């Protein structure tokens, strides 16, 4: 049986504090989100934080209204928020939406013997969704805790969770995931229905 890893997406000041709506939804999620991370750490599962860094020459990177580029390497806004960090966590830089796109993520997980990933963070319909899809394509068993992913617009999150559940992931809330681990000792791989 392979190991389980928890992946977070974009828990960084420049992302979380971009809009009041986003700041509010993260604040709402933070208590149970951090509790879930703590519990997974306590059970011996490593947390990998995907840190979005915009490359200066990326024409598709979102700029601020004043034209400056957020999420620059080494800046405070690019750091993982301390509330979500703990000793033993691993920070992995990414430069695009998927946490596997030209990053160390897959190699690190393979080296650690991981075959199951629990994908969390924001925004659900962008980085979470693409990271989960990419993990699925790479053969990982993908789980998404519905209460540990957020979007500015709840409708976007719901639509994304429907997509994830329909194509490539098991969606459950964090307490269900922990209960499943308690009862089965693992997170079972779902049989994905493929379209004709």
């Amino acid at each position, binding site marked *: 049986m392979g190991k389980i890893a928890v992946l977070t997406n974009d828990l960084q000041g420049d992302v979380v504090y971009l809009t009041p709506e986003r700041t509010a939804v993260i604040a709402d999620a933070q208590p149970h989100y951090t509790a879930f991370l703590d519990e997974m750490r306590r059970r011996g599962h490593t947390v990998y934080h995907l840190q979005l860094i915009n490359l200066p020459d990326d024409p598709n990177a979102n700029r601020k209204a004043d034209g400056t580029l957020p999420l620059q390497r080494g800046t405070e806004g690019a750091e993982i928020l301390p509330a979500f960090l703990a000793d033993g966590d691993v920070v992995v830089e990414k430069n695009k*939406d998927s946490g596997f796109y030209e990053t160390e993520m897959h190699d690190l997980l393979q080296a650690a013997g991981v075959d199951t990933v629990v994908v969390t963070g924001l925004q659900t319909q962008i980085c979470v969704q693409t990271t989960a899809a*990419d993990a699925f394509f790479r053969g990982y068993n993908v789980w998404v805790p519905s209460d540990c992913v957020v979007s500015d617009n709840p409708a976007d999150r719901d639509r994304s969770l429907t997509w994830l559940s329909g194509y490539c992931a098991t969606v459950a809330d964090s307490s269900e995931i922990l209960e499943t681990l308690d009862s089965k000792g693992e997170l079972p791989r779902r049989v994905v229905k493929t379209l004709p």
Partner: protein
Amino acid sequence: MASSVTGPDEVVLDHGSGAKLSHELVSLIVDTLGDVYIGEMEDSAMLSIPAGRIAMTTDSFVVDPPFFGNGDIGKIAVCGTVNDLAVVGARPLYLTLGMILETGLPITRLLQVVTSIREASLEAGVRIVCGDTKVVRKGEVDQIYLNTAGLGVFERAPLRMRDVRPGDRVILSGSIGNHTVHLLSIREGLGFEQRVLSDCAPLNGMLDELLATTGEGPVHSVRDVTRGGLAAVLHEYAQATGLTIRVDRARLPIQFETVMATDMLGINAIHAANEGCLCLFVAPEAEQEVLAALRSHRYGGEAVAIGEVTAAAEPVVLMRDGDGRDSVIEELQGSELPRLC
């Protein structure tokens, strides 16, 4: 092929000045093209072509990103123009090659594009007969834009939209949507780029083999499915013929991962651009022969009949769902997906 770089290792404005650096850059391009380039460095190419009807076409290429997983802008620039010539029934012979380069483009990247142009030209059996290179300042283009014009000759009757008849079967030579998904995935790092590849390919060889098999007649008209996707092609034919075209949703060849991606992105694969897919209108009695011929070719393995031209004298495109209900496919007013070719 020679590829040595003795000047700057990236494109500078003087590469477009017409002076010494320009000549050096042109020489490097010509050396890289090798025997694919048959120009004589005169102000115009002077060509011998068989007497009779010729086909000409031109296209510009601004694809973003210019370098992608299984191709680049150079490959697209050859395939796009070659395919435009081939689908009207012409044999592609010659291409022109215009380049607009951004200062700062690494020479190695430029030569990568030129090498792709050479390889695609060799596969398509065309030669580059003349070219032009311009250099602009940083930010005035995105790395590299290309233009190719093509000349072909007719060795058989032209294939025209006006020859499409009620009852004709509509056949696709391959899956739709992959080129769009591949490029969008690379732009944003969506995770699909290794599972879904661009279909960019020169299709004149496949079409040649098909027409050699069926002879003239059963294949009435052909289009390559590029910008605007399958929907744009079908609307073009509906308007040109004044007839209703109906396709069957369940038969549309769409790769599973492409279904996932288009669903994620909120786009419809029938509107997605392709670079290596033909839409053929063929006599009903030739359907199986055409399918067999296409499927025997490396670029036609997924060929499938998707619908037919009806006798209804109303220029609309219908999609039939699994319950037998028809819905109208509206023509898009514009596209939210720029720079796919």
